[in-house]
């Protein structure tokens, strides 16, 4: 559990960080909170000769709420998310999800950007951001661009971010209606056996809009358009929930690991999704 030797860089602004990435190419990686990368380096599963720490770049910090638009700097920590009253007022689902990530010590260091950019299918924020239809803002040598969360993830640890780009911010429109982030895990600090993010909007007694995404049930986060569509126009009663769950399960592809076999994960996913829908509807 001792990493190989590496050079440590701590640039003070984004352009310096990008220049370092350019200079060292494949030998360099940026580090945010480090709670995925450092264990990988200690296990020597990742060798990073040049580690570029983003902590000193103020431009990557801060939570901005302008009208309905919410922008999170990539270096905003999970703790800052939870502690932000303004953010909790407009998007409480972020806090509900962040509180289910690891433990307080990890949340003081772990960042939204790191959680999103690493591409680990176990991370909770990617599914949530797909549920919220968020945009990811990237900067690289060619300039800035945005990618939708729902188009960002290609396979485990593979994303639309180029190696010489840095995720700088995330933005989304503050959601309306009911919400829930439901997660089953074996213990504190574990990745989800199954987790679901659900946003529902109610008009009268029927569901006007629905967004459902899932975590750790495939090699990428899964936003199930079909599951949401099934709920729209219904009373989110027992049969509608059942149909939405069936639609969601058609979109997942879990694999066996120490958490259990595939059949178990699919059953748990069904239970978790149903609970998330029911809870979200109760808040809608």
């Amino acid at each position, binding site marked *: 559990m*001792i990493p190989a030797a590496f050079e440590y860089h701590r640039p003070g602004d984004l352009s310096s960080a990008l220049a370092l990435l350019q200079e060292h190419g494949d030998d360099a990686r940026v580090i945010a909170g480090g709670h995925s990368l450092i264990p990988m380096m200690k296990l020597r599963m990742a060798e990073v000769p040049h580690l570029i720490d983003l902590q000193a770049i103020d431009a990557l910090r801060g939570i901005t709420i302008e009208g309905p638009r919410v922008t999170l700097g990539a270096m905003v920590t999970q703790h800052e998310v939870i502690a932000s009253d303004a953010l909790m007022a407009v998007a409480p689902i972020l806090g509900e999800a962040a509180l289910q990530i690891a433990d307080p010590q990890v949340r003081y260091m772990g960042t939204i950007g790191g959680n999103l950019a690493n591409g680990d299918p176990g991370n909770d924020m990617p599914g949530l951001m797909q549920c919220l239809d968020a945009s990811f803002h990237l900067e690289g040598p060619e300039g800035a661009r945005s990618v939708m969360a729902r188009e960002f993830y290609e396979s485990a640890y593979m994303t639309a971010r180029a190696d010489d780009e840095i995720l700088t911010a995330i933005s989304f429109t503050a959601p309306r209606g009911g919400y829930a982030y439901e997660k089953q895990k074996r213990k504190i600090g574990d990745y989800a056996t199954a987790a679901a993010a659900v946003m529902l909007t109610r008009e009268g007694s029927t569901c006007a809009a629905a967004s459902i995404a899932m975590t750790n049930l495939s090699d990428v986060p899964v936003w199930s358009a079909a599951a949401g569509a099934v709920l729209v126009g219904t009373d989110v009663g027992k049969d509608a929930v059942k149909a939405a769950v069936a639609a969601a399960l058609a979109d997942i592809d879990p694999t066996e690991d*120490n958490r*259990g076999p595939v059949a178990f994960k699919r059953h748990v996913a069904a239970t978790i999704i149903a609970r998330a829908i029911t809870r979200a509807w109760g808040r809608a």
Partner: protein
Amino acid sequence: MNDLTPDRDDRVAKLKGLGCSRKRVEDARFTQGKGNYVDDIKMPDMLHGDFVRSPYAHARVVSIDASAALALDGVVAVLTAKDLEPLGLHWMPTLAGDKQMVLADGKVLFQGQEVAYVVARNRYVAADAVELVEVEYEELEVLVDPFKALQSDVTLREDIAGETSGAHGERRHPNHIFLWEEGDKAATEQVIDSADVVAEEMIYYHRTHPCPLETCGCVASMDKVNGKLTLYGTFQAPHVVRTVASLLSGIEEHNIRVVSPDIGGGFGNKVGVYPGYVCSIVASIVTGKPVKWVEDRMDNLMATAFARDYWMKGRISATKDGKITALEAKVTADHGAFDACADPTKFPAGFFHICTGSYDIPVAYVGVDGVYTNKAPGGVAYRCSFRVTEAAYFIERMIEVLAIELGMDAAELRRINFIREDQFPYQSALGWEYDSGDYHTAWDKALAAVGYDGLRAEQAEQLAAFKRGETRKLMGIGLSFFTEIVGAGPVKNCDILGMGMFDSCEIRIHPTGSAIARLGTISQGQGHATTFAQILASEIGIPADSITIEEGDTDTAPYGLGTYGSRSTPVAGAATALAGRKIRAKAQMIAAYLLEVHDNDVEFDVDRFVVKGAPERFKTMAEIAYAAYHQAIPGVEPGLEAVSYYDPPNMTYPFGAYICVMDVDVDTGEAHIRQVYALDDCGTRINPMVIEGQVHGGLTEAYAIAMAQEMAYDDMGNCKTATLMDFFLPTTWETPHYTTDHTETPSPHHPIGAKGVGESPNVGGVPAFSNAVHDALRPFGLRQLHMPHDHWRIWKAANDLGLHD
């Protein structure tokens, strides 16, 4: 007299002796980060060791090329078996009469096995060099299933392939280690085969790991000028380590000093001798410099001693009205690659034959087959006396299965089979003499405390609601009544490597009335510095706050066999009391002289000797201590010191009643613990607060073991649980709340009646948690579900029972 009473109470309170919830004196330094652990030790020019470990569970080592590692700046040496062979140290004896490779000698037998030992100027270079050692392996067929290992043509231990007998008798297969038997086999079979009711079940107690927060490690320092070897290490038995180190190295024992500094938990993991210690000593002898080796978490989980892994085939018979008539246990014990269990020499299955439990069972038989597989060696007592958790789990599961067979309430079945109070001392069918107990009182108290009948009614209501589709949660009530056997043990039948399992205490009273006591044990968090001072305070009348307790330095402490198996209080605690009584006897003579009366005319009273019938005439212990060093007393040697080596006449038999109530979610497999009630009877209670802490800690381990914690391997022998992501160590978040309670039945043969408690909650807790899971699913036909009861296994049980249809 009345006006003297409060004064006496004050004096008693001031001592902080037996029965006082004295705050732990160790905690000031531990809670402030001021402990001194092995990894805190830094010495000038100290080198660092690290292992090249096998990625394979079974493979031939074709070649080892260390040239690239040796070329790295800062690397001092790379040791392989070839380097150790001329010293005779490429293999070492285990505590179980087997031998174990120190470094891979021609082949590897488990994943994580030590192959080469790198010595470098710092820890980082050592880790880099490990990567550079090139080892060529030729993979061999892997055996991870002990039943298949006994059928296989593959011989794991080629070094003893032709030997048809081992340290514990006949070996009937190359992968067989021993068959150990106790009890009357023929009579047991005869009773069971003709019984009214027989319950039969295979009970598996899975492989797990003690996983102390601090991993194992040492610093070896050979002083070539004076020929002395100093070995600092995480040793639960420092004196035994000194003797073993002397026997292995040829260094005379007086030239070896072993020091156990603060230890961050042991739980049996730190009893044995590991390759890291041997290699560090050799490296220090070769280089003449101190060498430190400290495991990381993966090293610890993969390579140092595991616990349990017992497949227990049981048969239990009873009359139609539930009176148990016989018990049979046939165990297949997976010992891994080497038999490195840490049991007393004559007991290769430890004290598993305590498995008749708390019940009056007239005839019984135990047969344990030890088997080699391609897993890490070990089989240590993880917070229990030797194989006692396995035994307690076995009988407490068999009782539950028998209750199903009889259609009887399991609480009642226990009650009608308990050994009665008037039967103590009780001779068990498997050869033990239980010292004391009052099981019925404890059981009734426990059932009343939880409101057992009400819980059963509530459970029935919840079951009905489940069947109506109103809930997906089932309520389970887990019962457990356990009897432990601790305090090993009488020298006549308990030894480790030939050394009798006595223990010791040496006391020096200082002239101003304070004291130091040194013991042969070593605290790893048990709080010895707190509780042994309390024993002594009550015995010699000096306040516990004025007594220093010191352990772990073999140059200063008297010889003892160490701390494990809840033996410290039963054995060293007894030595402490008896050494204290020697002090008191001498103090009495001094007091009589000072008071100018005959020895028999003074009596001990809390903190002083008083003239009988004249309590105003007295000498306090402080005055007596002063006189011992400052006054010529005819016929009495100066000074006030004593030493006692205690050979216990018997083991002690703590017992307890634990009850767990939980809800099991059949869809997610999650178990929510509602309530855990733990009644312990550990005899005389020295420090109720320390006892409560011990019980909380042990219950938390029991909860982990029963519900999720395991060492799992795939078919290739890859360890699947080598990090704390997959190996469950509960945090405060997962840990349930506990209610503790007690009865007090002193041991008749222990000087202060104390029995030991540190391990009871692990022993009794596991069946309580496991039985609750079983009880929840019992209405649907569940008889036996192997631990750990993690989410997917509970889900699978529910699925197999048709609860998802």
